[in-house]
C-alpha cells in the first residue's frame, strides 16, 4: 500500500467515535460520564449551548476546524453521519444500490428548517433542536432502540450463568419509554436509513440544520476539494462515489458547502485530478459566494446571534399545558432547563433508578421529549447525581452529592382523604420510611402513627410518592419551577439512648 489515505483514517476514526457514542448511551454511569465529558463536548449543538452558556469553548474549535478543513465534522465526528455511512456501505455491499448519483438541491428546504429552528429558539422553543439536531437524533436512536437489544442479550446471559449460581452480572431493565417518543425515534431511524440507502447523505444536505451551518462555513474554508478542469475526462468515477452528491462532472464543479468531507473521491480518480488543497492554490474563477447564499447566510448568522441572546427570549413558562414536570436535580429550573436541553436522553439512559422518563409534550412547546422525573415506578436515589455528571450540554448541571441532597426539585403534599393511616387508622408509614431527608415525620395520636410533612426539608425526590400504596397516591410531588436549597435536617432533641434497667444483664 504505502499510500497515505485520508479516507482510511476517516473510516477508523469515525467508527471509533460511533462505537464510543453508542457505548455512552448504553448508560453505564462512569463510562457515560467519561465519554460525555470528552467526546460529546465536540458535538455541535451541545458545544454551541455550552458556548452560549459560557461553560465551554469547544464550539470555537469546531468553527475553526470547519473554517480550516470544511465539513469534516459530518464524516468524522457526527454519529448520525457515521450511522448513515454504515448503512450506505451495507447497501452497496449487498447491492441494493450500485452507485451514488448527483443530488438535486434541497437547500431551500434545509434553509427553511434552519430558519425555523432559529426563529423558534428566539421565541423560546427548543422543539426543532429536539427533533433535528443530529447528535440528539442519534442519541435517542442508540438509547431507545440499540440499548434494549444489548439489554436483551445481557439478560439472556444472566439467565444462563445464574443457573450455575453465578450472580456477578445482573438483570438490567429499561424503563418503558412513552410510545410517542419511541415512535418519533423510530420514524427518524427508518427515515434516515431509507434516505441513506437510496439517496446516501441526503439527510445531511436537505434537513440537518447543523449540516447547513457547517456548509455555510465550509464555503470559505481554507482547505477545499478542487477538480482539475482541464485534464478531467468526465469518467464520473468521482461522482459515483460521492455520498453527498456534490460533484458535478458535467459542469466540472464541486459544491464544497454540501461536501461532507468523506474523502472518497480523492483516491478513486486514477489520475489524481481531485485535490484537497488550500485556498491559494484554488482556481480563481470558482465563485465562493453567490449573492443569494450571502443573503441567506447573513439572515442565519444574524438570527443565530439573536437566538443566543437570552434577553430576547420570550417568557417560556407560558407554554406549559398543565402540571409542570419535575425536572432533574441540577437543572436549576424551568427556564434554564428548557433553553439548554436538547433531549438527547443520555441522562434517561444513565439514571440508575430509571426515574427519568421523557415526556413528549410535558414541557409544552418549550421543548419536545425532554426528560422528567416520573415517580410511578421509580424514585430519585438520594445518593446519586449521575444525571448531572453525564449531561453533555449542561442542562442538568453537575451538583456535588452534598448539594444535590439539599436541592429542592419538587414538594410533597399529602391528601389525607386518600391516606391509609387516616382512613383505616392502621399503621403504614411507607412514605416516611422511604423519605431520606426526614421531611416526613411521625405524629402519634391515639396509638396510631400518622405521617406529616415538613416542607423545609423536602427535596421532591419522590421516594414517598413511589412508596405510597394507595391508588391514586395519597402523597404526590409537584414540581418546583425554580429549584431551591433546603435546610439540613437537625433533630430537635437527642435520641434517648438509655436502655431500661436490666436483671442479669437483660430486661427479661
Amino acid at each position, binding site marked *: 500500500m504505502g499510500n497515505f489515505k485520508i479516507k482510511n483514517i476517516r473510516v477508523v476514526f469515525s467508527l471509533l467515535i460511533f462505537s464510543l457514542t453508542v457505548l455512552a448511551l448504553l448508560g453505564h454511569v462512569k463510562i457515560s460520564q467519561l465519554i460525555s465529558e470528552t467526546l460529546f463536548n465536540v458535538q455541535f449543538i451541545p458545544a454551541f449551548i455550552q458556548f452560549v452558556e459560557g461553560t465551554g469553548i469547544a464550539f470555537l474549535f469546531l468553527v475553526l476546524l470547519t473554517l480550516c478543513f470544511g465539513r469534516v465534522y459530518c464524516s468524522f465526528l457526527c454519529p448520525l453521519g457515521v450511522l448513515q455511512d454504515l448503512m450506505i456501505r451495507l447497501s452497496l455491499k449487498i447491492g441494493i444500490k450500485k452507485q451514488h448519483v448527483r443530488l438535486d438541491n434541497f437547500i431551500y428546504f434545509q434553509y427553511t428548517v434552519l430558519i425555523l429552528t432559529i426563529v423558534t429558539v428566539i421565541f423560546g422553543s427548543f422543539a426543532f433542536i429536539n427533533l433535528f439536531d443530529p447528535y440528539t437524533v442519534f442519541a435517542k436512536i442508540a438509547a431507545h432502540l440499540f440499548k434494549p437489544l444489548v439489554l436483551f442479550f445481557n439478560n439472556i446471559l444472566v439467565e444462563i450463568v445464574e443457573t450455575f449460581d453465578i450472580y456477578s452480572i445482573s438483570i438490567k431493565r429499561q424503563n418503558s419509554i412513552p410510545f410517542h417518543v419511541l415512535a418519533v425515534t423510530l420514524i427518524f431511524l427508518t427515515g434516515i436509513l431509507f434516505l441513506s440507502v437510496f439517496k446516501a447523505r441526503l439527510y445531511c444536505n436537505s434537513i440537518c440544520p447543523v449540516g447547513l451551518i457547517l456548509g455555510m462555513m465550509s464555503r470559505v474554508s481554507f482547505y477545499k476539494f478542487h477538480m482539475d478542469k482541464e485534464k478531467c475526462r468526465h469518467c464520473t468515477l468521482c461522482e459515483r462515489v460521492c455520498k453527498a452528491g456534490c460533484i458535478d462532472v458535467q459542469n466540472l464543479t464541486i459544491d464544497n458547502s454540501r461536501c461532507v468531507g468523506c474523502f472518497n473521491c480523492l483516491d478513486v480518480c486514477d489520475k489524481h485530478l481531485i485535490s484537497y488543497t488550500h485556498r491559494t492554490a484554488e482556481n480563481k474563477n470558482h465563485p465562493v459566494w453567490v449573492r443569494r447564499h450571502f443573503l441567506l447566510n447573513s439572515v442565519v448568522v444574524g438570527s443565530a446571534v439573536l437566538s443566543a441572546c437570552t434577553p430576547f427570549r420570550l417568557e417560556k413558562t407560558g407554554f406549559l399545558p398543565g402540571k409542570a414536570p419535575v425536572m432533574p436535580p441540577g437543572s436549576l429550573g424551568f427556564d434554564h432547563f428548557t433553553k439548554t436541553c436538547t433531549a438527547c436522553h443520555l441522562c434517561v439512559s444513565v439514571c440508575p433508578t430509571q426515574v427519568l422518563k421523557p415526556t413528549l409534550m410535558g414541557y409544552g412547546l418549550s421543548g419536545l421529549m425532554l426528560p422528567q422525573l416520573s415517580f410511578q415506578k421509580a424514585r430519585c436515589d438520594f445518593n446519586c447525581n449521575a444525571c448531572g455528571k453525564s449531561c453533555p450540554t449542561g442542562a442538568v448541571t453537575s451538583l456535588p452529592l452534598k448539594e444535590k441532597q439539599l436541592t429542592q426539585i419538587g414538594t410533597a403534599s399529602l391528601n389525607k382523604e386518600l391516606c391509609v393511616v387516616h382512613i383505616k387508622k392502621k399503621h403504614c408509614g411507607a412514605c416516611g420510611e422511604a423519605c431520606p431527608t426526614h421531611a416526613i415525620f411521625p405524629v402519634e395520636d391515639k396509638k396510631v402513627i400518622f405521617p406529616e410533612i415538613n416542607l423545609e426539608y423536602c427535596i421532591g425526590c419522590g421516594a414517598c410518592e413511589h412508596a405510597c400504596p394507595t391508588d391514586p397516591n395519597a402523597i404526590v410531588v409537584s414540581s418546583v419551577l425554580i429549584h431551591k436549597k433546603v435546610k439540613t435536617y437537625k433533630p430537635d432533641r437527642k435520641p434517648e439512648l438509655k436502655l431500661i434497667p436490666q436483671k442479669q444483664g*437483660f430486661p427479661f
Partner: protein
Amino acid sequence: MNDNKTRREFLKKSMVMAFAAGSTLVPGSLSPIFANTSKERIPDLVAVKNGEPDIMFNKGIKLMGGMKRFVKKGQTVLVKPNIGFNRTPEFGATTNPLLVKAIIEHGFGAGAKKVYVFDHEASSAYGLAAKCYKNSGIESAAKQAGAIMAPADDYKYYQGVKIPGAKILHTTDVHELLLETDVFINVPVLKHHSYTHVTMAMKNLMGVVWDRMYYHGYGLDQCIAEFCLYKKPDLNVLDAYRVMKSHGPYGNSPEDVVIAKSLLISEDIVAIDTAASLIFGIPPQKVDYIAMGQELKLGKMNLDELNIKRLVL
C-alpha cells in the same frame, strides 16, 4: 473535615476489632460446635451480651445445641439479614456483617452445601439494591465466608404462594430461594421504626416478598404476622449490637445508635421479638404485630413460660 476523621477512625477501629475477633475465632471456637454432647434441655431463647457480634453468636449457637441441630450435611441454607437500606454498618440500619459472616461459617461448618444471602431493598425501587449490598458490608462479608449473594431486585426471582389461614395476606410473591433452600435463617437487626415503633424478626420477613407495599396498604401489622403462617424461619438470630433508637428505619446519623452489644437466638419468632422489644425499651404489647403473632399461634409472648439461657460475656 471532622466528620471524615471520625468516620475514618471508626472504620479503622472496626477493622482492628474485626481482625481481633477473627483471630480469636480461628483457633478454638469452631471445634466445639461439632462436639455438641450436652444432654441439657435445649433453651427456647438464648440471650448473649457484651461481646463482638460473631463471638456472641459462637457462644450463643453452642447454647442452642450447635448449628448441626438446624443444618444437616448437604443441605442448602438461606440467610436473610436486613440489607434494606443504603447505609454503612455504623448507622445500625442493616444487620452486622460480622454476625452474618459467623452464621455462614457455622452453616458451612455444619456441612451445608450452599449458603445463600439476599434481601429485597426496602423501597423496592429499581437500581438501589447493589448499593445496599455493598455499603452494608454484608456482600463482602458473605462472599468471604463463601456464601452466594443472590439478587432480589427483579420480579423474575419471585413466585406466587398461598398463605393458609390468612385474613388479609391471602397470596403473595416470595423469593424463589425461600422455596428452594432447605434451611431458613432469619437475621434481623433490632432498630427503631417511626411508623411501627420497632422492627425485628417478624418484620424482617418483609424482605423475602416482592410487593411489600401491599402490606402497607392493607394492614401492615396484620400482614407482617400473617406471613409467618406461610413460613416461619427455622432459626432467628437477632442482631442488637448497634441499636438504632430513633429516626428508624433509615436513620439520620450514627448518633441515633446505642451500642447494646446484645444478641438473641430463638426458633420462636414471637418470643424473640418480645425479648427484643424489651431490650429496645418498649412494652411488647405496644407493638401490634407481636400480639397478632401470638394470636395466630406463631409463638409465645410470655417469656416466663420459656426456658431462657442468658450469657453475659
